[in-house]
């Protein structure tokens, strides 16, 4: 009898624990701040993917023949390709015919000439997201007050760019910053020269799909010897239901140029999964430098893994000139599935690539992310700092390639991969690939896996912090090196995002 009592008492406790976990997770699922939807009349292309759809997208963008031909070639190729399944990701088969490939707000039918003409509903959407789409009126010669750094924004809503700020001011410096559809029309010589030169059409299944159906995205050209006068950013918002977003970004830093570029993304909460397959190409010529920072916060799905974005992204930078430099910084907190490996091709002699990453997976999220450092030039250097945090039932994989080609003599790589586990139902995996084909190069790889320590949490709590504050503090400490690599605007956002993403992960 006593034994029975003890047993039922234990069951009750267990149930109590489970209830508590579910409650905290529920509370947390409500914490995704950007899950609302903009009610706006949307024009869709017919569902599914066909040659007609590719032609329609091209026509909607008013593209020249060469662009259409390029898309059609990609589409032909894609039909013969198979979706890659080598990543440590588990998801049901994607029905590529069961979604829309083009969606645009009706009010964007006639392209607004200036931001003042943009549909107030769209402007309100970005205001609510905290993205400044207004250029503060500044008198000529008047410096922006300290601490109020200006950022030019290209805002992409579903399949179209809504507007780009500070274009005129950037043009004065010779910088071209516009949507890619506009660049195809206005700067065909640059687009033809560089599009697909870093990520070829044939690169991979998702990049090929993107090449066929990409609708919009950003285009940046920094002329020789120019330091871009302000930070550039693109903000991607998926709003329409059952619609994929396929944006394409092309950044060219000419000889001796410099630019820092930021990318942010969010989407409404929905029960169905949505596909996001983007391509980012960066061309960096001699002595030029590009910093590319991402805060990826697509809707991650609910606590049971229902809904959320499937994020299949190809990002690559080509250090084409000697002494070219690129730095990728990413904070990946969203998406149900993340498949993303921002890479560096270190072609120029003495070129440098850096990759700083924080990937957080909570609840049922799965992330398979990392980088590729391809050393082709002499004395090339790369550095990888990856911080993976897993909580709930999430799986988080770092997958990275460091390759030293025979000609890449005297090159160096340093890799540091740290994983942090919160709770006992999640997983962290590190899959490094290292290929060295010369004997004068050096490759270092360090990896650690640790758990959030109860002693640390108790120490924090005994000083007055609640449990979630304590976890956020410890985790922020864990990824400090990467947070420090972020531009100021993003560092603050990322820090609070880390806390929000992990709310309810302990208890």
């Amino acid at each position, binding site marked *: 009898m006593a034994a029975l009592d003890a047993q039922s008492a234990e069951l009750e406790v267990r149930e109590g624990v489970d209830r508590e976990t579910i409650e905290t997770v529920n509370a947390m699922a409500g914490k995704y701040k950007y899950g609302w939807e903009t009610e706006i009349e949307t024009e869709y292309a017919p569902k599914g993917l066909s040659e007609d759809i590719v032609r329609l997208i091209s026509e909607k963008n008013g593209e020249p023949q060469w662009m259409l031909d390029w898309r059609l070639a990609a589409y032909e190729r894609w039909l013969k390709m198979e979706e890659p399944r080598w990543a440590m990701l588990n998801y049901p088969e994607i029905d590529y015919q069961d979604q829309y490939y083009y969606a645009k707000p009706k009010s964007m039918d006639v392209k607004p000439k200036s931001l003042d003409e943009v549909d107030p509903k769209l402007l309100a959407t970005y205001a609510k997201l905290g993205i400044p789409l207004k250029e503060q009126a500044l008198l000529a010669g008047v410096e922006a007050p300290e601490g109020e750094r200006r950022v030019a924004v290209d805002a992409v809503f579903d399949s179209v760019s809504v507007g780009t700020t500070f274009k005129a001011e950037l043009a004065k410096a010779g910088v071209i910053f516009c949507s890619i559809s506009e660049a195809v029309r206005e700067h065909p010589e640059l687009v033809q020269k560089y599009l697909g030169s870093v990520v070829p059409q044939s690169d991979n299944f998702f990049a090929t799909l993107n090449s066929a159906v990409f609708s919009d995205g950003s285009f940046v050209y920094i002329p020789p010897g120019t330091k871009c006068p302000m930070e550039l950013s693109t903000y991607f918002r998926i709003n329409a239901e059952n619609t994929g977003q396929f944006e394409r970004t092309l950044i060219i830093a000419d000889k001796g140029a410099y630019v820092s570029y930021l990318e942010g993304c969010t989407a409404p909460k929905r029960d169905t999964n949505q596909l996001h397959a983007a391509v980012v190409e960066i061309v960096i010529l001699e002595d030029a430098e590009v910093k590319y920072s991402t805060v990826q916060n697509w809707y991650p799905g609910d606590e049971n893994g229902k809904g959320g974005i499937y994020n299949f992204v190809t990002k690559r930078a080509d250090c084409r000139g000697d002494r070219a430099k690129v730095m990728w910084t990413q904070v990946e907190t969203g998406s149900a599935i993340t498949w993303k490996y921002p890479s560096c091709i270190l072609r120029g002699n003495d070129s440098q690539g850096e990759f700083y990453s924080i990937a957080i997976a909570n609840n049922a999220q799965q992330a398979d992310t990392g980088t590729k450092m391809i050393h082709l030039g002499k004395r090339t250097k790369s550095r990888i700092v990856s911080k993976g945090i897993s909580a709930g039932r999430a799986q988080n994989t770092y997958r990275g390639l460091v390759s030293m080609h025979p000609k890449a003599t005297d090159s160096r790589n340093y890799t540091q991969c740290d994983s942090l586990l919160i709770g006992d139902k999640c997983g962290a995996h590190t899959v490094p690939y290292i290929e060295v084909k010369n004997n004068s190069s050096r490759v270092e790889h360090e990896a650690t896996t640790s758990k959030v*320590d*109860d*002693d*640390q949490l*108790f*120490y*924090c*709590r*005994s*000083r*007055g*912090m*609640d*449990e979630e*504050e304590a976890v956020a*503090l*410890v985790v*922020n*400490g*864990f*990824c*400090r*090196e990467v947070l420090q690599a972020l531009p100021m605007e993003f560092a603050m956002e990322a820090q609070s995002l880390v806390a929000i993403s992990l709310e309810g992960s302990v208890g």
Partner: protein
Amino acid sequence: MLNINNLHVKLEEEDKVILKGVNLNIGPGEVHAIMGPNGSGKSTLSYVLSGRDGYEVTDGSASLEGAELLEMEPEERAAAGLFLAFQYPVEIPGVGNMTFLRTALNAQRKARGEEELSAGDFLKLVREKAKTLKIDADMLKRPVNVGFSGGEKKRNEILQMAVLEPKMCILDETDSGLDVDAMKLVSDGVNALRDGKRSFLVITHYQRLLDHIKPDVVHIMAAGRIIKTGGPELALEVENNGYADLLAEVQ
């Protein structure tokens, strides 16, 4: 200030009873010391009071200014004015000492419905407190306790105490691992916080700390109970004769 009544505690994981009816009353402004041999339950008492996991209270109660302590979360106890200076302060890599302190202070202020301190005001406050403890700016910038020497860690605990301004301070073997100079520095820091209202419970093996921090009352703890209570002379007696006589006396 602190009232402990018939406190019984066992380990959660195993059937080991550690505290077997502890009674202790500390009035406002009083400094009490608990001495006792290893394994007598001194550190357990400090952990149970501050709310660490792993212990089960089977009987008795503890209250801070009349508020039931044992029902509160650790952070609520902190906001209510309880502070534990750890015997082994914990390292938190990547988190700056200043960030840690500011987060803690503002969390407590928020819990008490007070306004959070601005970065500027906080900086001023910490600098002033750090100066009296001879803590240099470098130590404030470093990650919490990471790479700190034993003495630095203990000084850091006292700095936290000075900034958080608790009502009831528990010092768990603060003298362990300190050389004579560091002990003096730490003691000076503690003494500077004695203002006639703030109370202290000083847990130690050795009498030497009590030369610096003069207690009003000394308790001897053994096998989970307080077996004798007296004035500062009791500490000297232990120092000279050890615990054996006292233990024999009780038995």
